[in-house]
């Protein structure tokens, strides 16, 4: 590239002038802020409740392009003011977690490995085993202390362990279902 002395002075002078004025009059703060863009800035926000324990801390779920990108405490929740416990702070792992199994796995009695099964097959198995266990072990009548026979309609062969992820309505349905079967051991995961 050929550069005459005149060109050199022209370009060099312009650059020097640009540097001298630019550095003085420019506020770098907005540039810096743009450079450190927030990943949740363009995200959709959903208000939700932590799925784990009974405290029910409010959470803000940030999603972008149909994917959850961040979950943190909701500062508007009166009893937590946006704080979360370590388990609640890791709620995002419920959705974004490569280690989490996302297909139903079945281990046959006595087997040493898990195998993938369709969900429909699982439902059928659960229903059938519920039914069979109930048919086999249902206690309809029992003798009381005085020897008289009383109707108990009890099923002691099945225990139900509820989930803290279940909401109020789901818990109601689960209770109804279990009591209908006569299940006595009706527990909740948060109390175990």
């Amino acid at each position, binding site marked *: 590239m050929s550069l005459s002395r005149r060109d050199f002075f022209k370009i060099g002078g312009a650059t020097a002038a640009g540097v001298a004025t630019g550095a003085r009059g420019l506020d770098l703060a907005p540039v810096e802020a743009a450079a450190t863009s927030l990943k949740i800035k363009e995200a959709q926000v959903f208000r939700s409740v932590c799925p784990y324990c009974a405290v029910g801390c409010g959470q803000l779920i940030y999603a972008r392009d149909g994917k959850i990108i961040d979950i*943190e405490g909701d500062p508007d929740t009166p009893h937590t003011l946006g704080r979360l416990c370590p388990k609640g*702070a890791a709620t995002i792992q419920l959705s974004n977690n490569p280690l989490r199994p996302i297909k139903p796995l079945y281990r046959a009695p006595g087997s040493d490995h898990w195998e993938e099964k369709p969900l429909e097959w699982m439902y059928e198995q659960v229903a059938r085993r519920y039914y069979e266990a109930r048919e086999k072990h249902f206690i309809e009548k029992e003798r009381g202390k005085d020897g008289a026979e009383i109707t108990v309609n009890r099923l002691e062969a099945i225990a139900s362990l509820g989930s803290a992820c279940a909401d109020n309505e789901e818990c109601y349905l689960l209770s109804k279902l279990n009591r209908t079967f006569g299940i006595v051991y009706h527990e909740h995961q948060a109390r175990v």
Partner: protein
Amino acid sequence: MARTLAMFTDTSLCIGCRACQVACKQWNELGQEVPEWTGTYQNHAHFTDKTFRLVRFIEEPKPQGQMAWLLMSDVCKHCADAGCLNACPTGAIERTAFGTVNINQDVCNGCRYCVSACPFGVVTFNHDTGTAHKCSFCNDRIHNGLGPACAKACPTESIQFGFRDDLVAKATKRVAALQAMGFKEAQLYGADSQGFLGGLNAFFLLLAKPATYNLPDNPQVPQRNVVRDSVFSLGSALLVGLGAIFAFRRRGEGKESDHA
């Protein structure tokens, strides 16, 4: 320049729940590490390139024979006189407008001078990216008006985030209150901007001597040795040079005597 932002960690309030640690990992997408058994509840043993927040569980024997559990959520201190920043040859480590120290990952060339220059062992090297990593006070969050993820998650407000002068005033009151309650050794670590390293932008309220928490009593930047050691080097170079001149001075004489 904006007012300096700081983090005040009141260890007397810490319950060791590690919500800060998890929130930090979650926001910064740091990923998991294989846990290491250290003999205490503490996990991990030290800062890594994937652990910027670390709750230290210190078991301290008391005179009555019981154990005291000292919990401290440790983090990068963002020193006013930062060893890592002084050591960085590429300018990747920068002081932001808020007074925090941040590593620009695009500029870092992975020389690891900062790793050895940090008096607290905070800066760590990531072998996947080939750059140094440390806590940035959630640089993206504080530049957009949000506090750091750890301070937001802390359920007991042991970690407080705000303007440094406000927090120092608050911390001073808290120390006085604790001492009145009988915590005789309650003290602030790094709150004094006239003290070591020009004051820490993440300062702590400790319930025992700093050494109990494995913190140096008087941390210094390694750069303080540069002038002294340079003088020593020059001195030894001079000595070696003089010695060499002295040793070779008589060489010519020997040759002459051989010829004679």
